[in-house]
């Protein structure tokens, strides 16, 4: 008996190492990634009632969403927010990296501090800014007051709510971009700058002709990571504005949440999710083409 157990054990060891090591990961990914993704696609073709499919409707959800005013607004808001937040993060992050990419006293302190907001959980981040952006007692308006700027109703006005969200995201994620840009800057060989100096290039020209082109792989990575994050804007509208004022801060994921878990229209909600997924997918592919890099995995 003992011998048999031993034999079974050794045969498991010999032949089943590969499946056993892959199984836990694949089971979890299967249950929580592959299956739900396909099921979402399936659901998006159905009319649903209280979490049950009722009737196959084909592309009806997609067609109706195409003409749906609210969905369009949410989509536009999400895109505006994404473009603003991603470009802000890139510019500020690159600026921080360039400032810190030279021998400097206290460099480590600056670098560590700039990265710090990145580790703050999103919910805490939203609450923090909710208070700081308070129109009457908020710190931001107080500080702006020093410069003679009148209080801005950040979250209470249609035109300021998205800029406020953009500002928050740039504050939180610039340090992340900075760390990546700093790593990218270190991979640029000094000889290139020396050669440019010999050729009489100005600092400005060196930045545009040497630094920026060589930072392309890192930039692509930062842009894709940031887009993946910003296109899924949810916590801020959910906690701070409920999509308001009016529909000024409605985002696609917030609409998916509302439609799926409040109105319980999961077919339509799934169709929205699929559309957003396709948009993210296509943008990613286009970006990789646009940046034209092989070494991206």
């Amino acid at each position: 008996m003992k011998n048999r157990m031993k034999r079974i054990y050794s045969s498991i060891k010999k032949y089943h190492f590969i499946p056993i090591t892959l199984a836990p990961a694949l089971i979890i990914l299967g249950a929580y990634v592959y299956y739900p993704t396909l099921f979402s696609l399936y659901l998006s073709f159905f009319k649903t009632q209280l979490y049950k499919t009722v009737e196959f409707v084909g592309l009806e959800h997609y067609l109706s969403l195409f003409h749906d005013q609210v969905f369009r607004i949410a989509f536009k808001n999400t895109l505006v927010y994404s473009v603003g937040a991603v470009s802000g993060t890139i510019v500020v992050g690159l600026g921080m990296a360039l400032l810190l990419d030279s021998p400097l006293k206290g460099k480590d302190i600056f670098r560590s501090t700039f990265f710090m907001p990145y580790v703050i959980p999103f919910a805490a981040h939203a609450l923090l800014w909710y208070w700081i952006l308070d129109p009457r007692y908020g710190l931001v308006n107080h500080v702006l007051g020093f410069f003679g700027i009148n209080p801005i109703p950040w979250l209470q006005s249609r035109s300021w709510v998205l800029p406020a969200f953009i500002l928050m995201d740039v504050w939180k994620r610039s340090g992340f971009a900075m760390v990546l840009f700093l790593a990218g800057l270190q991979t640029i060989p000094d000889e290139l700058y020396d050669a440019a100096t010999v050729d009489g290039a100005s600092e400005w020209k060196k930045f545009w002709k040497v630094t920026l082109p060589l930072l392309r792989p890192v930039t692509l990575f930062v842009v894709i990571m940031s887009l993946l994050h910003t296109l899924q804007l949810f916590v801020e509208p959910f906690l701070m504005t409920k999509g308001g004022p009016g529909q000024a801060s409605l985002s696609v994921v917030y609409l998916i949440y509302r439609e799926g878990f409040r109105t319980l229209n999961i077919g339509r909600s799934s169709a929205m999710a699929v559309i957003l997924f396709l948009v993210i997918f296509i943008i990613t592919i286009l970006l990789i083409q646009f940046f034209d890099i092989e070494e991206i995995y």
Partner: protein
Amino acid sequence: MNELFKFIKKIWNPIGNLSRYRFRRIILQLFKYIILIILLLVIVIPIYWVFSTSLKPASEIQAWPPQWIPQPITLESYRYAFRLLPIGRFFLNSLIVTSVVIVSNIVTCSIAGYTLARKRFLGRNFIFGLILSSMMVPLHVRVIPMYLMSLKLGLENTYPGIFLPIASTGFGIFMMRQFFITLPGEVMDAARIDGCGEWGIVFRIVMPMSKGAVSSLALFALVWSFEDFLWPLIITSSTNMRPLQVGITLFLGLVVYEWGPVMATTALTITPMIIIYILLQRRFIEGITAGAVKG
């Protein structure tokens, strides 16, 4: 006017003894520091403000102009927060979920990463592709079926319900595989000749050799489980099962414009993350850059 310029030049001349080049450099350096310090303040002050608000007496919080330093310092807001909601329970929930996510990611991602990096078998590239593609699917696409499935399995308001979706991650497997591929194969061959089994190689040779990668993965897992908001929000409906990051937002429904308790709990949520970050910042930054620069 010309006289004035000449005069200024004369006054500046002592500085001009430094070469003009050095003078320009000093000005430039000064300018750099000014920008850096402004950025530093922009980052630090909002974080400081959370702590300062949380320590103020209720009457001071909405004082205008705002008080920079709380006076007197009081824990009133913290007491109020703990009375309103089971903050201790939120902490416990987060601690349980986070520990499980960290351990299970380290184990499952390491063994799968090892097999993908070091073993040859039919369908390896297919499986690796499948795992990579899982990184492309954002949560919002899967969240409704995930919820329906969890309801059916009775996972609502349970710890497994919260942590299972991130118990093993495509990114983690990818990261470990990329690292294991760089390890010298001779070490593993030597262990094999000495009679070490495959499991022994993974847990006694490969993982100890990859302490850096393993601890980066642990940090990522920590951040994931703390950042995850939408999923824990959906899968927990009873207040007692909420993890910290979801629990603290419940104040917004309980109090209206009472920032004291809200900032107190925000401070409690931020503090552990900032402490861990300060202690392990090198690992954080290494982990993040490894993902980008190595691919």
